[in-house]
């Protein structure tokens, strides 16, 4: 899957494009993993170009949560479509990660940290 990354002073935005399922989640896992290995610990995943997510995609976020917390970093998401939020909601995952409506709110959040 196509994944764009944009570096900001306080955080890095990851923008996956397309469905995140058992097939494509491997790419997202790798992209986030490489950022963490490179010393980034504040990660923002923009979901604005993700029409669908399955448990494999949710699993990527869960598998990185502990690692990011250990690095005293933060994992936040934004721009979720209704279908994508539904998957988070069904598992209660929306209570574990910060979800913002848009990128402006993400920028404000990291600027205040």
């Amino acid at each position, binding site marked *: 899957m196509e994944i764009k990354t944009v570096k900001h002073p306080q955080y890095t935005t990851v923008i996956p494009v397309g*469905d995140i*399922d*058992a*097939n494509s*989640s491997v790419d997202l*896992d790798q992209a986030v993993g490489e950022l963490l290995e490179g010393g980034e610990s504040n990660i923002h995943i923009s979901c604005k170009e993700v029409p*669908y997510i*399955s*448990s*494999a995609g*949710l*699993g*990527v976020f*869960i*598998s*990185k*949560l*502990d*690692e990011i917390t250990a690095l005293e970093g933060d994992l936040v998401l934004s721009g979720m479509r*209704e*279908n994508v939020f*539904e*998957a988070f909601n*069904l*598992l*209660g*995952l929306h209570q*574990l990660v910060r979800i913002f409506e848009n990128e402006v709110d993400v920028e404000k959040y990291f600027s205040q940290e």
Partner: protein
Amino acid sequence: MKSYLRVRCNKKFLATIRDFVKEKLADMNINGRVSHQIVLAVDEACANCMIHQHQCDNLSTLEISIYKEGDTLYTEIKDPGKAFPMHTYQPEQLQEIIKKRAKGGLGISLIHKIMDEIQVKQESNYSLYRLGKKLEA
């Protein structure tokens, strides 16, 4: 009337399965949130069969069918492999999954949360997963 789709056990065909389920549900005037939930549950069940029962063996196939019976929408997955007891499987708690940094274990939870009926049958040369979702009038 049942609609069928047969696909190889290759994860790249999960998108084909989702499109098929979505299209057949739309034909039955099932759209929106319910449609998305059913698509998600079928995707999870098929991914589970492909990955864990067939190790993504491109020579194996899954057959997916959809039909309505009374007020319930059924999807069936016919799998030539050994049955996985997804109807009785107890997934780990979310906190445990996070602790272990696991990537798996969530799909079966989603199926249980979405579907009202989960039946698994082991026949002599295939297994059959029947997932039912009650539709509101």
